[in-house]
């Protein structure tokens, strides 16, 4: 539960240093990229193009998405040479 106006510190200041780390910038996404691992050839095009560093890579392999930060722009799906990424509507 977020604070009411009576609970917030005066003047819209933030009292906790580094709290922006907890801010998940992916919450305004309307579409979510979904990977079909069968089609992926691990070329890393999506990793290069993603403007939000939201492609998860482990041991040189494309392993999915960081949905906390992915804004759903669809660039990864667009550049993928094997059409391994599909954009799916986020349900409310």
């Amino acid at each position, binding site marked *: 539960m*977020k*604070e*009411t*106006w*009576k609970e*917030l*510190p*005066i*003047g*819209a*200041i*933030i*009292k906790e*240093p580094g709290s*922006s780390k907890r801010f998940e910038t992916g919450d305004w996404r309307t579409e979510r990229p979904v990977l079909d691992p069968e089609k992926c050839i691990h070329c890393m095009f999506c990793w290069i193009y993603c403007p939000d560093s939201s492609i998860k890579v482990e041991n040189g392999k494309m392993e999915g998405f960081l949905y906390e930060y992915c804004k759903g722009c669809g660039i990864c799906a667009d550049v993928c040479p094997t059409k391994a990424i599909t954009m799916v509507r986020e349900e409310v």
Partner: protein
Amino acid sequence: MKVVAKTANEAMAEAMRQINPDVVAAYPITPATEIVQIFSSFVHDGLVDTEFIAVESEHSAMSACIGAAAAGARVMTSTSSQGLALMDEVLYIAAALRLPIVICEINRALSAPINIHCDHSDTMNVRDSGWIQIYAEDSQEAYDSVIQAMKIAEEAFLPAMVTADGFILSHAMQRIDMLEDEEVQAFIGEHKSPYNLLDIYNPITIGPLDLQDYFFEHKRQEADAMMKAPEVIKKVADEFGQKFGRKYGLVEEYRLDDAEYAIVVIGSTAGTAKDTVDMMRDKGHKVGLLRIRVFRPFPAEEIVKALKNVRVVGVMDRADGVNAYGGPVFMEVRAALYEEEKKPDVYSFVYGLGGRDVKPVDIERVFQMIMDADKGKKIDRLNYIGVRE
């Protein structure tokens, strides 16, 4: 207490000297009056401990004031007309960050055409910026109000501007009862900040992005501070009155008790209008006057109490809303009276733009028009007084 002859410019600069702010940032270009120039000579002469920052625009002046106030300093500045308009964007920031900055403002007309004389278009332009606004009737009140404003701002954690009419007060010499420096210091007390940017043990972030999920809460908090400001203003004025003998309220009623016709004014016109009320009372007319001293927060309750039994009210605005309906003070006074079952009829009279003189005969005409309206004569809702027709 010592009696001196001073202009409002000098009196407000003296109030600044006695407050001895930590920082004054200013850009005293025309149409600013000499307040900052006088104050800078106090800095030069070592009469204050102030860090004087000469910046390159009024926008920067208020920005520097905000930075200094956020860092825990007691901060003041001064401006007029276009200068205040150029500060506009940053005024909102000072208020929302809840920084207790005080501006000594001289009311001068906004361009175009270019004009440096009195009207209230400059401060009316920023009436919704979240600043407390106190309009002085004379230089004594301007001086007293600057001292009170510093204390009010630091208790309400809202910035405050004290205004005095250009030339009529700013450049005219008047008898002023000045307090002793120590009395001013004792009255305003220790500086209070809402927070301190330089407190390394309690680091804070000021002015971050604030989107849909928090912005509204922060604005609601600011609105609450303005709702509580009347109590702070009255408390500080009472304390001032008890200590120094000069009493001030949110509004001032003049011969309103049994009045059937009333005018509402702000600023120096109240002086001329009080004389006119006396003259008309001598002729047997039941007339009175309400002066709004504090326009922000808007003293709706006091206004309604003062005017609800009057038959017709003429609200005199020294600024035109250019809205084809009525002046800004008129709009709000009329709206405040709406709730009352028995309410006076209210008309708008725009006057004195660009320093056009307002004479007793002009004010008499306003009274005459509202008295005629009461007798059934049709008059316009919005009237212009003192313009060549």
